[in-house]
């Protein structure tokens, strides 16, 4: 194989100035002001790219992948280490460099292409290809300022991709432009790939990389964490990102909990327990009519029995509202009886954010009888493998009597967040596999 890019032990730091003076006067007079922090963006990275490969650089924001691309395109230079590149580089980092709004599309093609180092003769040779690809024949002699942003990008991309580069550097900027043109761009890039052009693509979307690249490098905090076949690297990266998201959600939840606890302490109310005789169904119906219960409210009910607390736990028994798909989900409903009834029905359910039912169940459906025995207690509900797909769901918790009269009913007790490694579409994960013969 033929190594076209060789990056050896490259490090790069940026100076972050507290208060930068870039005047001679300031530097001379206030030299103390020029304090700065070194921020190391790339730490001793090395990799190689073979001719004709499509390499994806993946990583979260600020990981150093764009810096790597800038180093490869020689906009900035490494502090230490060495980068060797054989051949002409065309970068789609910044499309339309040097475009002048008052000049016509045709003139701008000349200017722009000349920045890629093409001579007039070379540009003339490529003119037809560029124009054909941009689909802008009829607007070519209009000034660029009259173009829509989509047309602008189309013209710029057409130039950049027709430079006949050996190496094409692409940043995720490609997301602009209408989807048809985007498809065209990708198919053109695929064509170039088969023609032996080396392509380096920077993105934080794993999908794009697994679709387009055969090799990928995962950069995290300036270090290469994985380098290998695109699929493997993307899988590792996604696993990591899921974990990160989980951490983030847990952190947020902890903060919310603390806040809630403070509020609860402020507004805690005492309820007196009434232990008079068990009401007849008629009495309940009457009470229901008098109470004028509005079931469109989030929380309603006769409050003969009250949900004191509903605790949600994961498989490890930790209290949380953030779950991984496949985790165990446990709901503990703590109740307090105000007026004893013969029997209680405990229920729960999941809604989507648009209030669509996903799942609902109660003790009556499952033929479990819960007669009155004590004034307070707990009922637990468990799902061993939570099958929900990624998203936010509303948890419904309720206690009714055997006729369905609401005693304490929460449409949405709280929100549940689910992170899923199954990227299927919908709300529910169903075990599956594809068999290709």
């Amino acid at each position, binding site marked *: 194989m033929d190594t076209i890019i060789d990056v050896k032990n490259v490090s790069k730091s940026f100076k972050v100035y507290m208060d930068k003076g870039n005047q001679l006067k300031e530097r001379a007079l206030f030299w103390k002001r020029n304090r700065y922090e070194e921020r190391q963006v790339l730490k001793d990275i090395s990799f190689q790219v073979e001719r004709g490969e499509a390499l994806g650089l993946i990583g979260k924001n600020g990981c150093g992948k764009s810096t790597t691309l800038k180093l490869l395109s020689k906009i900035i230079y490494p502090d230490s280490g060495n980068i060797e590149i054989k051949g002409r580089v065309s970068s789609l980092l910044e499309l339309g460099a040097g475009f002048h709004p008052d000049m016509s599309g045709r003139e701008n093609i000349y200017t722009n292409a*000349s920045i890629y180092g093409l001579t007039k003769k070379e540009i003339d040779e490529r003119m037809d290809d560029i124009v054909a690809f941009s689909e802008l024949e009829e607007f070519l002699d209009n000034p660029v300022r009259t173009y829509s942003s989509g047309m602008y990008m189309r013209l710029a991309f057409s130039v950049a991709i027709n430079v006949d580069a050996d190496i094409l550097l692409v940043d995720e900027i490609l997301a602009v432009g209408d989807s048809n043109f985007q498809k065209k761009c990708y198919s053109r890039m695929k064509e170039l790939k088969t023609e032996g052009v080396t392509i380096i693509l920077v993105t934080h979307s794993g999908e794009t990389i697994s679709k387009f690249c055969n090799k990928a490098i995962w950069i995290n905090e300036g270090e290469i964490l994985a380098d290998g076949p695109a699929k493997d690297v993307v899988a590792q990266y996604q696993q990591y990102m899921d974990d990160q998201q989980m951490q983030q959600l847990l952190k947020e939840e902890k903060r919310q909990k603390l806040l809630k606890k403070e509020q609860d302490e402020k507004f805690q109310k005492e309820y007196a327990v009434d232990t008079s005789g068990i009401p007849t169904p008629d009495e309940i119906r009457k009470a229901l009519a008098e109470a004028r219960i509005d079931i469109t409210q989030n929380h309603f009910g006769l409050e003969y029995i009250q949900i004191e607390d509903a605790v949600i736990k994961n498989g490890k028994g930790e209290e949380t509202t953030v779950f991984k798909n496949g985790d165990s989900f446990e709901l503990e409903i703590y109740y307090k009886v105000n007026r004893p009834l013969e029997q209680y029905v405990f229920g729960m359910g999941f809604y989507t954010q648009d209030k669509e039912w996903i799942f609902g169940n109660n003790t009556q459906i499952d033929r479990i009888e819960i007669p009155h025995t004590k004034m307070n207690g707990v009922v637990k509900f468990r799902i061993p493998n939570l099958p929900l797909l990624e998203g936010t769901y509303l948890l419904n918790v309720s206690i009714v009597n055997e006729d369905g009269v609401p005693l304490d009913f929460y449409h949405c007790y709280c929100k549940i967040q689910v992170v899923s490694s199954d990227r299927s579409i919908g709300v529910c994960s169903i075990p599956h596999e594809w068999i290709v013969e």
Partner: protein
Amino acid sequence: MKALRELYDYREMISGLVRRDLRGRYKGSVLGFLWTFINPLLQLLVYTMVFSVIMKNGIEKYYIFLFVALVPWMFFSTSIAGGSTSVLHSESMVKKIYFPREVLPISYVTSSFVNMILCLLVVFAVLIISGFGVSLKALLFLPIVMIVEYLLALGFTLMSSALTVYFRDLAYILNIVTMAWQYLTPVIYSVDQVPDEFKWVMQWNPMTSVIVAYRDILYYKQVPHMSTLIMATVLGIFFVVIGYIVFRALQKGFAEEM
């Protein structure tokens, strides 16, 4: 060598930038040209008033003596002072795309050079119409002197444009420096008028031999002294090499400094 080869590959970009600059300068054709010409013309008027009417200095046809030196000097001084921001003002390009950064000062100096050629045409018109005349034999040496001055201007502009990225106020400082420099160069006077104890200033000033050569050719209508020509050529090459080395060293940090 590889870098020079690459610069050659970027000739279309240089000529494109020069064309764009000139087009901007001469927009509206005749009027545009007049506008860029009005500055040297005004200076010519003022100096002529002062030195041949008020403080008579005894130089014959002083306005021609001055004119043939003022035009090349203006090319040199606008190159280094104006060209100092040539990189800085292309910030958006420098930060986002690769090209040999030398392209920017080179195109600035080149477009100023084209401008000087147009001004020299006016000088010729004055020489012929006023009946002062030209010597064709001496004129053969004019292109050499012009090329040498181009190299000298380029050398200084490479330095000034690179340093201005790091020290923004250099652009203002250079305006003052070039003004002072003009008085240290035999533009409004001749070298003979300089007292002996200050002759060393003339010798150390790289622009002296260039201006002297222009004046030999156009005012005295004679072939410049070989020593003047050699001196000018050596200095021109020396400064363009120095300028290039300085620029190369500083250009690596451009994108980060901006």
